[in-house]
């Protein structure tokens, strides 16, 4: 789908981007939205990957690091452009389009800001169809594309260019992000439009704009289907062990125990490691990654972050089905339970 994202569409887009997004702190989200509004100007052209000239250089843009840090260290405003320009300098070629790594909350808006600043179109689609914690966990990787070279721009003018084996990007990037203040904007996965068209999850930007229309069902933001597992009241939030000890994920594992308030009154357990990896009901596996498991507060309808979960809270547990490519053997290896340390 082609079109343009103006001030009005931006509001719909940002609203849609929050529907299943975890980790979206209110202040950093509002900050990013204000940032996007300030650069929206005449709007950004939205193109389908296939409509671009096949040889066009496309660059994935994403926020790297912690959104909490973003709300504490306010952006200078030029980070997305600086990151893409650095990549262009390294490649000796101008980027013809920007694409999102994923479309969760702030991560949906940063590519828009980049496209507006660079004056290039935004590709309608993204690299996950959901969120994964690692830069490598994308359909681009599944499509055989490399995240490097990667350029990271920090809020105090830092600029870092990474070139390494694809599997080591996360390992190198994380300390760098910490040292530049906890967050930065990364430009990565430089690729030709023809490769992008093959690897991306298409149409997700326009889908979120439709889902952001007030009154639209939440399921409109889930292209491959969404189901509500059950309702549950949080009984306890525990530290968790037994998985992921050797995984270098950005946060520590935890475990959320819930009880269905009525109906079957099942005992539920959500194992979280950066995101909710596994859902058990009475000990039986009812959902795992790569599908996205969300807690939606029954009070205000907002997604409840794993680290915001507290006893007494009542939530609906929803499962957003991942793009089919994630359910392939390679997709599961990259984003399935074993990628999070669960021997399932």
């Amino acid at each position: 789908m082609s079109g343009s994202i103006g001030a009005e569409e931006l509001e719909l887009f940002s609203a849609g981007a929050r529907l299943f997004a975890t980790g979206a702190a209110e202040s950093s989200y509002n900050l990013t939205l204000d940032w996007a509004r300030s650069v929206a100007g005449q709007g950004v052209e939205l193109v389908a990957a296939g409509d671009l000239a096949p040889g066009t250089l496309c660059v994935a843009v994403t926020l790297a690091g912690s959104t909490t840090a973003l709300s504490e260290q306010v952006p200078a405003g030029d980070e997305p452009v600086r990151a893409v320009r650095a990549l262009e300098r390294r490649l000796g070629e101008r980027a013809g389009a920007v694409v999102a790594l994923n479309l969760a909350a702030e991560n949906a808006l940063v590519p828009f800001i980049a496209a507006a600043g660079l004056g290039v179109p935004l590709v309608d689609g993204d690299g996950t169809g959901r969120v994964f914690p690692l830069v490598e966990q994308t359909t681009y990787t599944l499509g055989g594309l490399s995240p490097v070279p990667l350029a990271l721009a920090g809020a105090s003018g830092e600029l870092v260019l990474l070139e390494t084996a694809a599997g080591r990007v996360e390992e190198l990037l994380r300390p760098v992000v910490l040292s530049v203040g906890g967050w930065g904007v990364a430009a990565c996965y430089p690729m030709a439009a023809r490769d992008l068209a093959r690897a991306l999850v298409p149409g997700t930007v326009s889908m979120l704009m439709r889902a952001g229309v007030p009154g639209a069902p939440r399921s409109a933001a889930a292209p491959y289907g969404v189901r509500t597992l059950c309702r549950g009241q949080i009984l306890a939030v525990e530290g968790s062990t037994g998985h992921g000890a050797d995984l270098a994920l950005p946060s520590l594992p935890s475990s959320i125990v819930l009880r269905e308030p009525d109906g079957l009154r099942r005992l539920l357990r959500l194992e979280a490691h950066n995101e909710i990896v596994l859902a058990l009901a009475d000990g039986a596996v009812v959902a795992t990654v790569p599908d996205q498991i969300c807690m939606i507060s029954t009070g205000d309808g907002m997604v409840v972050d794993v680290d915001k979960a507290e006893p007494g809270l009542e939530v609906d547990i929803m499962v957003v089905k991942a793009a089919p490519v994630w359910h392939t053997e390679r997709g599961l290896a990259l984003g399935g339970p074993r990628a999070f340390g669960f021997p399932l």
Partner: protein
Amino acid sequence: MSGVRSPAWEAPVTVAELVNAGPLAGARMYGTGENPVRGVRIVDEPAVFGTVAPHTAVVLTGTAAGGGWAVEMAMRRAWEQAAACVIAPSGGLSEGSGEVLAERLGVTLIFVDEDPLIVAVRVASAASRPDAARTQLVARCATRLAETDLSARRVLGVLNTELPGTSVAFLDPYGRHLAGRRDATGDRPSAVDGPSAVDGASAGAGSSTDEGWSLSSGKGGRWSAVVEVPDQEGGVLGTLVAAGSSRSPGWPSVVRTVLGLAVAPLTAWAARERLRACLDFALRSSVAERVLAEASTSFSDVEPAPGEEETAGGVRVAAVALGWPVDGPLTAYQIRPVTDPGDASTAQALIIAALGHVPVLARAGGWAGWSSLEPAELVERLERCLPTMPWRCAAGVGAPVEGVRAVGESLLGAEAAAYVAGAGTVARADRMGPAELLGALPTGVLRAPAAVVLRPLLAIDRDGTLLETLAAVLDEGGSLKAAERLGVHRNTITTRLDRVKATGFDLDDAATRLALQLACHVMLR
């Protein structure tokens, strides 16, 4: 071997048995634990569950025990495979959700502190040789019983410690609680007075097999075992009763065997107490006094408070050990030495020889006590006893009363009866009247004063006619009846009375009449 152990010992051990009395002792168990365990499987990753056989104890290690999620998944899989239980290492896991899930799925979950691999080996050995595991328990009980002091409380303490999940109590021959846990008799019919209660209780244990225990399905698998404890003479000392709710088919049989082991120590305890009391009059007398004192306050009806149980029940336990009757119809006796009382220990030994195991206490210058014998039988025994005494004695028997609480009243009667009884004879309080009181007058002693009082009369009464007439008038209450009794005309009586009055006696004075009548009675007997 088959003659010693019941076939039930070969029945598979249940999870609860492993935890309560077996290799998992001290572990924390969630769930009922009623499933039999036929084998063990070590599960280190979820994939292994596909090959877990039913009735297997699943021991989690490695990844499979890695966290709350892993244990929950293991319980689910165990449920699907009909495993007997899930055994998980306790380290660092929160047990709350496991408890909830154990209840929801009906899969027993056990947390152990030890290395799961060591636990697995021990469970495997118990599961493969259930009779060996049970024999081990019985052997441990036998050792503990051999080491313990000879005392009903200690013996019951051992039983209740070594047979977890099982309540054991020791009841007296009247079916009342003496030692051990009261809930052992929880669903037995409430004790009835009298020795027949024991028979009633064994029948109450239901369709007792020859094993002496029964499984009644109606009460959530509650079973009970009853073993009678004889005293050294073959009588009934009391009853050991055990109850529990385990559904393990082998367990009641094991319990019964262990109860059997406790019979000898209990019999020995009672025999030793009796021997000791036989030799020591003071001890026996003091126990009897305490029984009486307690009977007047709390003896049977008031349930003692937990704290005072030791002292309150203690006398009862002692009384039962000595074989004394404390319930049902009781009759008191009193033996009164006519001459100076002799050695109490000798008296006690002779009394016990004649009456059986009865209390003997020093009372009213003699010895008293009570017995469950019928009054007539008691009189007969006492009559045989008196000649064996090295001193001249008289004896009395009180009226029969119900229970030791009322025995004080019977003792008073016995004391009175002993007083009126002549040397070498036995009087019954319930057969005592004015004649017996008069008979009790010490005529020998009174004869001399009587002669002094009557001297003026005797001086003129050459043939004794005047004394006979005076006695007849005083006894019959008037001249008319006296004339009838003596077969003379009433004027004759009047004439003789005038002669009596002439010697100075004022027959209108009541005191003079009483003294004269007493004197006549003494002189004419």
